[in-house]
C-alpha cells in the first residue's frame, strides 16, 4: 500500500463512512436532520476534492513514467489481477457523480424532512448508491463493475419505493426491481461470456482483455460477440436506451420526485462511463463488432424517445422519454471510438446536471412528494413563480440544444463525433429528432408561460436546499453554454487507460 493506492479508493471510503455516521447519528441523536444533511453534504464535497486530487496524482504518476495505476490484492498470488484503476477518466466521472449526488440530495431535502426518522435511511441509501456508481467507473475488472452496478441498483430499488404509503411508489419499486434485476442478470451473463472467450475478468494487466486481443485472434468469435452484446444490452437497460426503456417512465413517475433526479442522472453517468471503460478501455480492437450495435440502439432511442415524449401529458414521464432520446445522443458518440469519449463525457455531464435541476423544479412544482406531475399543474407557472418558470425554461432550452446553453455544445460535439466516424445516417437522424424534440420542450414552456394558472393552484414554495440546487444547475448550464472550452479541454484528456 502506498498513498496512491489509498487515494484510488478514498472517495468510496469517505462516502461509506458518511453513510455509517448518518445511521449512527439517527440512532444516537433525536431530531438530527441537520446533522445528516451536514454529514452527507460534507462527504460529497470531500469526495469531490479527492477526485481533483486523484486527477493531479494521475498527472504526477504519468509524468514519473509510472504505469502502476492499477490496484490489486498483491499479497494474494491468485488474485494478482487489476481490480480498480485510477485514471483521468475515473477521476472526472467521480467528480461529476459526487456533484450530482450533492445536487440530488439538495433537491430531495424536503422529502427527507417529511420522512421523519426514516429520512436517515434515505440519506444513507443516496450515499451508498453514489459510492456504487463510482465503483462502476473506476473498475478494472468486470466483476468489480458488476458489484458497483448492484450496489447502486439495489439502493435505487429501495429509493424508488421509499414513499411506501403511496401505491404508485411501491408499483414503481416492483417494476424497477424486476426489470433492473433482469438487466443485471443479462449484464453478468455477458461478463461470464467475456471471461469464457478471453480468459480474464480484468480489463487491463498482463492477462487482461485488452492485451489478450493484442496478441490473440479468436478462432471462433461467436462467444465473444454474444458477450459484448449482452454487456451492452445490460447497460442499455440501466441507462434506459430504447428498446430497453419500458421501465423508465413508470419508475420516474411513481418514484418519489426527490429521488428521481439523482437516480436517473447518476445511473446515466455511471452507465455510459462504464460502457466506455469496457468497450473503449478493454475492447478497442473489436470496434467493428460493437459500433454497429450501438449505432442501432442509439438510432432507435432517438426516434422512440422523441416520438413518445411528444404525446405525454405528465412532465415526469415526458422527462423519462426525453431521457431515452438523450441516451441515444450520448450513445452515438461511442461509434467514433476513442475520439467519442470526450463528447460522451461532456454530454453526459451536461445532461446529468440538467436532469437533476429539472427534477428539482418538478419536485417544487408538483403537489405531492411522489406520483405524477400532470402538465396542468404547470399552467401559468410564470405568474405563480417566475423564478421557477424561467429556470425550467433555461433547462428545457438546454435539453433541446439551443445555442448559448450547454446542451447545444454537447449535441454539437456528439453529432460531430458520429459524423467524423462516417455514421452520416445516424447524424442526420439525430438532427431530425432534435428538431422534433424542440416541440416537446416548447410544449411545456408554452404551458408555463401562455396558459392562465388554475384558480385553486397551491402557492409554490421552494425550500432553500432545492433553490440552491436549481440555482447551481442553471448557472452551470448557462456558463458551460457560453464558455465550454475549459470543460472541453478537460474531457479531451479524460480518456480511459
Amino acid at each position, binding site marked *: 500500500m502506498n498513498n496512491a493506492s489509498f487515494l484510488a479508493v478514498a472517495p468510496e471510503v469517505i462516502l461509506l463512512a458518511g453513510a455509517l455516521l448518518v445511521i449512527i447519528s439517527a440512532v444516537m441523536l433525536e431530531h438530527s436532520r441537520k446533522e445528516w444533511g451536514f454529514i452527507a453534504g460534507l462527504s460529497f464535497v470531500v469526495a469531490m476534492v479527492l477526485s481533483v486530487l486523484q486527477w493531479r496524482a494521475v498527472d504526477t504518476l504519468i509524468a514519473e513514467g509510472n504505469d502502476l495505476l492499477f490496484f490489486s490484492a498483491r499479497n494474494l498470488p491468485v488474485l494478482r489481477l487489476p481490480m480498480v484503476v485510477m485514471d483521468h477518466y475515473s477521476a472526472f466521472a467521480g467528480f461529476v457523480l459526487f456533484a450530482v449526488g450533492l445536487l440530488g440530495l439538495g433537491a430531495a431535502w424536503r422529502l427527507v424532512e417529511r420522512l421523519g426518522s426514516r429520512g436517515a435511511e434515505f440519506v444513507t441509501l443516496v450515499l451508498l448508491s453514489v459510492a456504487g456508481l463510482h465503483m462502476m467507473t473506476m473498475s478494472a475488472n468486470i466483476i468489480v463493475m458488476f458489484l458497483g452496478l448492484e450496489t447502486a441498483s439495489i439502493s435505487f430499488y429501495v429509493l424508488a419505493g421509499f414513499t411506501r404509503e403511496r401505491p404508485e411508489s411501491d408499483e414503481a419499486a416492483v*417494476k424497477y426491481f424486476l426489470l433492473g*434485476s433482469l438487466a443485471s442478470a*443479462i449484464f*453478468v*451473463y455477458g461478463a461470464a461470456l467475456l471471461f469464457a472467450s478471453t480468459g480474464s475478468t480484468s480489463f487491463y494487466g498482463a492477462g487482461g482483455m485488452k492485451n489478450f486481443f493484442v496478441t490473440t485472434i479468436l478462432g471462433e468469435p461467436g462467444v465473444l460477440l454474444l458477450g459484448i452484446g449482452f454487456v451492452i444490452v445490460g447497460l442499455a437497460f440501466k441507462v434506459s436506451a430504447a428498446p430497453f426503456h419500458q421501465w423508465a417512465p413508470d419508475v420516474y*413517475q411513481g418514484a418519489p420526485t426527490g429521488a428521481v433526479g439523482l437516480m436517473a442522472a447518476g445511473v446515466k453517468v455511471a452507465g455510459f462511463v462504464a460502457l466506455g471503460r469496457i468497450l473503449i478501455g478493454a475492447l478497442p480492437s473489436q470496434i467493428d463488432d460493437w459500433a454497429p450495435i450501438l449505432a442501432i440502439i442509439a438510432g432507435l432511442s432517438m426516434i422512440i424517445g422523441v416520438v413518445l415524449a411528444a404525446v405525454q401529458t405528465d412532465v415526469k414521464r415526458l422527462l423519462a422519454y426525453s431521457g431515452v432520446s438523450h441516451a441515444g445522443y450520448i450513445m452515438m458518440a461511442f461509434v467514433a471510438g476513442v475520439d467519442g469519449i470526450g463528447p460522451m463525457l461532456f454530454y453526459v455531464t451536461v445532461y446529468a446536471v440538467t436532469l437533476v435541476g429539472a427534477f428539482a423544479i418538478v419536485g417544487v412544482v408538483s403537489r405531492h412528494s411522489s406520483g405524477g406531475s400532470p402538465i396542468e399543474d404547470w399552467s401559468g407557472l410564470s405568474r405563480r413563480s417566475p423564478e421557477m418558470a424561467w429556470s425550467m425554461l433555461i433547462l428545457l432550452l438546454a435539453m433541446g440544444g439551443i445555442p448559448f446553453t450547454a446542451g447545444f455544445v454537447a449535441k454539437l460535439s456528439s453529432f460531430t463525433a458520429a459524423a467524423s466516424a462516417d455514421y452520416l445516417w445516424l447524424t442526420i437522424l439525430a438532427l431530425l429528432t432534435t428538431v422534433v424534440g424542440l416541440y416537446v420542450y416548447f410544449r411545456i414552456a408554452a404551458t408555463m408561460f401562455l396558459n392562465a394558472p388554475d384558480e385553486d393552484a397551491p402557492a409554490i414554495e421552494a425550500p432553500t436546499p432545492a433553490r440552491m440546487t436549481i440555482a447551481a444547475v442553471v448557472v452551470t448550464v448557462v456558463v458551460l453554454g457560453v464558455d465550454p472550452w475549459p470543460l472541453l479541454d478537460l474531457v479531451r484528456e479524460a480518456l480511459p487507460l
Partner: protein
Amino acid sequence: MTVTIGWYMSLAAVLFAIGAAGVLTRRNALVMFMSVELMLNSVNLTFIAAAKELGLVEGQVAALFVMVVAAAEVTIGLAILVAVFRRRASANVDELSELKG
C-alpha cells in the same frame, strides 16, 4: 463420450433462455423473480465451466460474488414484493397498472 465445455456452456445458455422467457411471459412477480434467479445461476455455471476449462480460479471467485449479489437481491426483492402484496393481496404484475400514459 466425454462431456466437454461446450455442453456446459450450452446447458447454461438454455437455462438462461428459460429464465429470460420466464421473466418476459410470466405475470406473477414471484415467478418472474425466480426466473431471474435461474438466469443468475446459469451465469454461475458459465463462470465455473470456463474456469475449469481455462484452469483459472478467477471464474470460481466470480461465481461466489454472483451468489452474494443474488442473495442481496433476494433480500430487497422479497421486501418490495411483500410491501406490494400487503396492499393489493396479489402478486400479479398486470394489476400494477396505476402508472401509464
